[in-house]
């Protein structure tokens, strides 16, 4: 069973020289250097929590952040702040009988949402299960499968991303209120308020949250400049991030990137408050289930089998 588990990652041990250099530097000046790569900046240090700012303050902050981002990423980045639409609560559906495990959603998400390329940050994890084995036995799922071709015989796949819990443990956990649930149901993070304690990661039952262990690395020409403050604007080192239902797209009336890209159409999206939406239709008419219902997180992410894949009726 050695196949599935990565060993302690290599390349993170210090080599002796850098270590000594670091030690010397540390000895010479036992002062803590500012955290960000950019110079320390009182405005950003003192920036208020997003929800505590008024519109004027937000505007000012966005102005500053856009400037900072332009310098940092060598590209003009627009940071939107579109608010939740009234009467909308987003929901997601995923047809497990159709997913072929191609991971196109994963990479579309990376592209759309400015995830770090090295180290790789993925907001979606596609799990592979062996057919006929214990169903949703996560422990026997495989995350690092790499076949020549998908779908593979005798396997099926289950993509997992933030389930946008109605009752999100991550929000409960966060000591600083840096993460919260928006009125349209999207759980968001203020990347300028998060202290990087990772308590939310411990709390999330779905492994949805990612931490920027290093400064995100995105080639300038691959940056998506259309961003949202609470969504895909490039993140900082040392803060958490996760799927936001593509807040920058969905609040503009578009589908999430992963819905758009899924070649087999396994992914569905819509407004849970609209009784005529496709998402409501499938919740009402398909056999849906949600992951780890026993946690009472009340996810807004519905898995279903549009078609029988088993012998059962």
């Amino acid at each position, binding site marked *: 069973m050695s196949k599935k588990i990565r060993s302690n990652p290599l390349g993170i041990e210090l080599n002796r020289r850098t270590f000594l250099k670091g030690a010397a530097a540390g000895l010479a000046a036992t002062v803590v250097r500012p955290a960000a790569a950019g110079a320390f900046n009182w405005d950003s240090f003192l920036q208020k929590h997003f929800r505590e700012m008024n519109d004027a303050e937000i505007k000012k902050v966005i102005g500053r952040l856009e400037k900072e981002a332009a310098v940092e990423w060598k590209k003009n980045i627009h940071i939107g702040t579109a608010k939740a639409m009234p009467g909308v609560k987003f929901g997601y559906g995923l047809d497990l009988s159709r997913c072929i495990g191609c991971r196109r959603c994963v990479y579309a998400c990376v592209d759309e949402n400015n995830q770090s390329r090295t180290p790789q940050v993925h907001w979606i994890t596609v799990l592979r299960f062996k057919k006929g084995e214990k169903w949703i036995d996560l422990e026997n799922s495989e995350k690092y499968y790499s076949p020549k071709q998908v779908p593979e015989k005798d396997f099926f796949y289950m993509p997992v991303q933030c389930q946008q819990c109605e009752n999100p443990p991550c929000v409960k956990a966060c000591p600083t209120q840096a993460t919260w649930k928006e009125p349209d149901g999207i759980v968001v993070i203020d990347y300028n308020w998060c202290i990087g304690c990772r308590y939310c990661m411990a709390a999330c039952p779905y492994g949805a949250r990612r931490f920027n262990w290093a400064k995100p690395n995105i080639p300038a020409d691959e940056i998506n400049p259309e961003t949202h403050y609470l969504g895909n604007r490039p993140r900082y080192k040392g803060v958490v991030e996760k799927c936001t239902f593509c807040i920058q797209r969905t609040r503009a009336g578009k589908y999430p990137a992963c819905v758009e890209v899924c070649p087999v159409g396994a992914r569905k999206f819509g407004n849970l*408050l609209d009784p005529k939406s496709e998402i409501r239709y499938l919740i009402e008419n398909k056999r849906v289930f949600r992951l780890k219902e026993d946690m009472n997180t009340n996810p807004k992410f519905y898995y279903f089998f549009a078609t029988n894949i088993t*012998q059962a009726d």
Partner: protein
Amino acid sequence: MNTEIKRRTFLKISAAAVAAAAVVSNFKDAEAAEWKKQIGKSGSQPDPVDEEVKIVRSVCLMCHGGCGIQAKVVNGELARLTGNPYHPNTYDYTAKGDIVEESDLDAGPAGKDVGSLCPKGQAGVYALYSPFRLQHPLKRVGPRGSGKWKTISWEQAIKEICHGGYLFKNLPGEENRKVEGLKSIVNNNDPIGKEDSDYLDEAPPGGYGPKRNQFVWAHGRNEQSPLTPRFVNESIGVPNMLNHCSRCAGTFYNVVEDVLNLPPYEIGAYCDYEYCDYLISLGSNITQADYPMQTRARYLQKFGKRVGPYAREFKHVVVDPRFSNGAAKATHSGAGEWVPIKPTTDAYFLLGMIRWIIENNGYKKEYLSLPNERAAKKKGYRNWTDMTYLVSTKEPKTYLAGKEAGLGQSDFVVLVNGKPKMFQEVDGSADLDAAVVINGAEYKTVFRMLKERAQEVTLGEGEAVCDIPSGTIARIAKEFSSAKHPVIEMFRGPVQQTNGYWNGQALCIVNILVDNVDRKGGFTPGHAAYKGDVKGNLRKAGGVSVCRHKSKYQGKNATATRPWYPLARRTVTPEFFGSVRMGYPYKIKAYLNYYNNPVFTMPHNATVIDALLDLKAMPLTFSIDAYMGETSALCDYVLPDTEYLERLGGFKTYPPVKTRVWALRQPVVGSFDPKSHNYRAIRPDTKMADDMLIDIAKECGLPGFGKDGGGPGININNSWDYWNEYYKHYDFKEGLDPKSSFVKLGGKFENPAPSKQYTNAYSSGDYVTFPGGRPVRALYVYQQSTALNKNSMTGKYFDGLPQYRTIIDCKEQPLDPAIWKEYPFQLHTWKDAFHTQSRTMNNLWLASIKPQNYAEINPLDAGRLGVKTGDWVKAKSPSSRHIHLYHNSMGDGWYKFQVRVTSRIRPGLFSICQSYARFGAGARKWYANGKEQPHDERVGAGFHINPLYMTDPVLKNVIMIDPVGGGTQSNGTPIRLERL
């Protein structure tokens, strides 16, 4: 939840958020010009295109529903297929009542009714890049069916096929076999003679036609029409353009065209789902199959249950031996029911309904009494029927002509207050339920004859035959005839039977009785699509086709050796395979298999296999295929076609869509040479079938292609030349100009405003307008042409009215009851929503949805047999025999199957859905140049039922066929089951 907002409002909000400028405009009653402007407007800055991303709109061909697709091509690679938002199959203007701006086209979060595609449609990406696709022309290097091939060049392939010779001299047994090439076959205009036929006695006076008729073309699908018929009927000039219709639903079209008096190829009649409030689906697998599958599923869902004007009173009755998804949805909603009819008994059900409706005055008397256009017009009806016309009670049972009634004309005669009158002279209504004796002969109105026919069997008996609870027929007939907008529609279930034509006729009559034909919310036939044309100096096909469709038997003997099908408007392909080995009616020389897989899809496919393996009967066979299909595998040459995503052409849509449509099929990848417009495919050694046919035509010197092929100065050297020309005439102008809205939007789509779809010009109610026009017309309950023709096997006249029968052989005799003792189960088949015919198991995206099928049986039968789900049984039919190609063949006519026990199948059935258990197309090993070719055992998973179809007891070697419509007995034939 008072936070709910309407979807529309929501869309608006989101649209406003996208760009303040993009206001969702209400489209409800836009005039044509405005519609054009709208399209023009969004079409002028159409797509989120940059160097990397390209949007190409084309037509799906994962099934034959003709949905519009929108291909997203990133860096030259097809990334994703979604629905074309301009195509009415995939974007439902009618329901939405508004048109979206381009900027909204990746849909609002509120719901995906913009550009929907079914799973198959989306999986087209896989088809394009499939590892199983053929890459080069192939020539067999072993006996037919050996699976051993070598790749050859296109030049060699075309040369050998066209010029023949000792093509297989290296193969044992074929050293001295000289094969005649196409060129000499198709240019031989001498009449077919003794040397070609042992059955000249049975030929009509004009003979069987020229010797070039010894070329046979067979297609499953003909999506390259009108280029393909041009090649076969007009360039080569033969009637042998065999199609899939006899195993599909050709009878449905046939009967609808006859009864509803429609021009051919306007593809049937369906329910107008939006306004229907009582729908009976008789053997129509709505939501899983039929045309266009996903559009109708969406319509049913929307209009029937969710947003239609009759959403509340809507009732859906599914009369089907199987609890289909449609039935599941109907019963699940609480406003529907499932009537688990026994297969092959539809006539009893339908005539039972007719009887009840007639006896209980459930029919529209005023309407049915109208004898002509004038009378109809006066009363505000758009059509009228032949119900009042007099018909002779003696054979041949023709309509009484004016002449015979002493009225001096040859037209129909009616009775007005008991007095014969020429039908066109009547101003008001004529006698409906009447009879008269003229010159000692008795004549009855069609209505009277129908009534008497219906009264031949009582309702209780009908229910016993159909094996449904007694009282069901009466209750449904009552509900049906008292509903506001009732429709009964059908598909393969009732028509793919030996009694199929009569079943279909009865169904049309049920609709006519309640006056719903052409009506808003009624039974609405198709309409003309846009069309173009390519001129040219062309041949005319003549003589008798190899399957004798549309040909009257006029031989010297009273009866024929094998059946003739004068009434079948489409070909009777299984009969071709059944008679080719005996050289009936004449021997053939070359067979071109195009997009066709009869070896797999034909009921009782053993006959097809025998024929294709017979070098004498079929001396030269070649196939145009994209994969090593089962049929191609048995041919001499296989020519690799491009997939549909690399093709030019076009497709219309089906009646449930009430606007006029012609969608353009165009390559979404690959490229045209800027000068010659030759197409270069992504697999460079594959070719569009069009190009192959044009190359063959040029090599053989056939008219209609090549230099001046489209008329003086118009050269047709490749597919592009043809379609560019085609799209310049009639309804089209621009050709393939890439800047035209036609190319950009992927077709020509009519203004979908509701005012364009319905007319209230008739005082009796709203009718469908029939885009493209349709004359007001008579509907023919009685089929005189049927009654005028004889069954060639018995010399007896056919019946012009529907009759009560289950399964009959070619002599119209019922099956020997003794057979049922030995073979007590009935064969049954159907289609899965995520597969198409034999085409999709090698699309692993689709195969992975449900990796295998099972033989399905009812728990009752499982109990009797002592089996449970997962157990194995063996099955045989009176005709099944060993086919070496099947892994589950036990060698002596028995085949073994794994069962799934489910109450979704009525008792007594042995049911297997189509598409699984392929043995070609990459399911098994095969070799080219000695090298193993891509294959995957998943393609072959599951079970297939076609070897188990029972053959005609008289003819022995061919599936039982409807003597009128030419359709096969696709369900209900006897089978024996044993536990393994």
